[in-house]
């Protein structure tokens, strides 16, 4: 009799826990869906997108070496799935070309600005994962060059599955609101003018914008597994010289000969920066304490 009663209580407890869990899942799902359904009315300043070969070449350089777009969108920028499982859901980086399934053929210049700088799609709904909170500070000239290059991409047909977030991904968004960048960007806030290219720390800081994704906002490294090194003075590069810094990024070898894992630090992309650009970044690192 006692055993039967205990089983009854246990079943009741299990049912209550399952019900609570289901309720929690429902509210998480609802909250994220509401956030993703929000429409952002963002006044986009008109921007002239050049089409000359020089601008396209500059855009290619920025896309492939400075802002790491291929890391998520694939080498041909035709997009690729990031998640496709029941726990995380279905999430893909968009096909940026004009091929089937791509946004290249349907995006206007304003749509490109909206997506890259503000993290929202054509209808004003927020994108996820897109690091627009970092790219918000890209100067108009460079953004124009990036758009010019993206518009010049050869079309690649790659239809990707629709976004459908799983519970794990929804929880990740709850713990880090910046995964919906549109929510953390001050869309009407002042944007400092982008520095002119040159061998100076200010331009180095500008070039190191995307580095902060892994190395942290002040480049002092992170505690998460695989996080970038501490690049500040007294950090993980204490005795490095400028020549060693440049050699490491060009060859993937540290001064003492250890290899840099290209899967952790995309040195093969960064290594294609010009000497002046690498020097500018080095000068910027010297200013960090």
């Amino acid at each position, binding site marked *: 009799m006692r055993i039967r009663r205990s089983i009854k209580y246990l079943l009741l407890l299990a049912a209550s826990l399952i019900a609570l869990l289901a309720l929690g899942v429902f509210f998480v799902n609802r909250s994220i869906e509401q956030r993703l359904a929000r429409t952002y009315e963002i006044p986009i300043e008109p921007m002239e997108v050049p089409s000359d070969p020089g601008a396209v070449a500059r855009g290619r350089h920025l896309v492939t070496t400075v802002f790491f777009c291929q890391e998520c969108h694939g080498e041909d920028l035709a997009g690729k799935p990031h998640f496709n499982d029941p726990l995380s859901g279905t999430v893909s980086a968009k096909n940026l070309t004009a091929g089937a399934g791509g946004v290249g053929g349907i995006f206007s210049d304003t749509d490109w600005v909206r997506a890259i700088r503000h993290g929202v799609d054509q209808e004003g709904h927020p994108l996820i994962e897109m690091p627009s909170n970092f790219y918000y500070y890209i100067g108009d000239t460079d953004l124009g060059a990036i758009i010019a290059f993206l518009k010049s991409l050869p079309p690649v047909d790659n239809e990707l599955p629709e976004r459908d977030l799983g519970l794990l991904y929804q929880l990740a968004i709850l*713990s880090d609101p910046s995964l919906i960048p549109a929510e953390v960007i001050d869309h009407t806030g002042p944007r400092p003018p982008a520095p002119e290219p040159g061998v100076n720390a200010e331009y180095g800081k500008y070039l190191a914008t995307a580095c902060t994704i892994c190395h942290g906002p002040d480049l002092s490294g992170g505690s998460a597994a*695989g996080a970038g090194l501490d690049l500040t003075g007294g950090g993980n590069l204490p005795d490095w010289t400028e020549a060693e810094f440049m050699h490491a990024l060009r060859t993937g070898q540290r001064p003492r000969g250890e290899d840099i894992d290209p899967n952790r630090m995309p040195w093969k992309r960064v290594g294609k920066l010009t000497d002046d650009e690498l020097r500018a970044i080095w000068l910027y690192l010297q200013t960090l304490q």
Partner: protein
Amino acid sequence: MTAGQVSLAPSSISKRLRAARLAWVVVTVLVVVLVSLGVPGLYARLIAGVDERSVTDLGWSLAGYGSYLTGLYLLVVLAHLVIGTIVFWRRSDEGIALALAFALVCNGALLPLSLIYPTGSASATVQLLVGLVTYIGLVTGLSLLYLFPDGHFIPRWTRLMVIAWAGLLLFAIFLPRSALSLAAWPIPLQLLVLVVWSGVGLFAQLHRYLEVSSPLQRQQTKWAILGLVLAVLGPFGYFLPFVILPALSDPEVPNILYQRIGPSLFTFSLLFRLSGLTGLNLALLIFPASFLVAILRYRLWDIDVIINRTLVYAALTGSLALVYLVGVAVLQGVFRGLTGQGDQIAIVATTLGIAGMFNPLRRRIQAVIDRRFYRRRYDAARALATFSGTVQEEVELEDVSQALLRVVEETVQPLQTSIWLRDIGPGS
């Protein structure tokens, strides 16, 4: 029936049995060799297939992760091999026991072999041998569901199911690209086949259990049937998501995306897969474990004594090895602290300690296993020990008689108990 026919039949059966026994030995050696040779590859494959960042985030090293999973897979293989070998050794004259021995040896190696030698990763000969082990494991595994415990198909029509299953697997494993191959069919159809064949097998066992088996057979087989059912159903829960969504097994993402999203999503995902793999391997252990319980506790096939000894001496060896290793390490530390050296002293002292512990520890382990699996014998022995203590302390015949009656009632539980005391008069 003529005398000639009578004499021929047992001879042919005997020949078939001898061939089957020889086949079992060959297949077992094959499994041991294939698994042993593949262990380094399995370890390397496990390490290569996981995102190091998530393993580190869990507080593990890659080596720890690889060793844990490799150990888990080997434990499953070993458990199946040991029980299968004992069943073969003691009961290979019974067809159903031989089938079980085949099923145990091959099924235990199915998952590790599929990981060690994925399609196209080894030579055609090795793939053929792996296919052979897989085929025998899957055919005998499902057949047991239809044949256990007496080796007869009940209902009789279920033999057609087993023949069809064997045919389906023949194409699926050895001719995977043929139109008749199960592997080439759409996934929903594959699932339907698996559900129908295992469902009918479960129905056959249920029918047999409720309608055909005697109470003794039910007692003997209930654990074994539970193991069979879980062995058939268990892997469904784990493999189904992988069949439907293969991306679940590919966790690597660019570091920039990993850092952007944050490690918790990936770490939880790894934890989920790790728990799933641990659960799956533990579920696979239920198959040999349930037969172990059926053999030990309910005397299935009367080979409990062998299993009992195996359990006792395996546990004893493991315990002594552990004590030895810990003892040497601790004593070395102590002696080094006291005298600055002492490796030899620590080894000698620990060895002597081990020698002294052997018998007491063996008795203790034996008692634990008897208590766990031989409750009746254990209770009876304990009751007799208590009674002998009472007899030593009591001098009144009436009290001794009452104690004797009580112990008989408690242990044997007869309908009626009485004591007849012979009256011994003076001088007789």
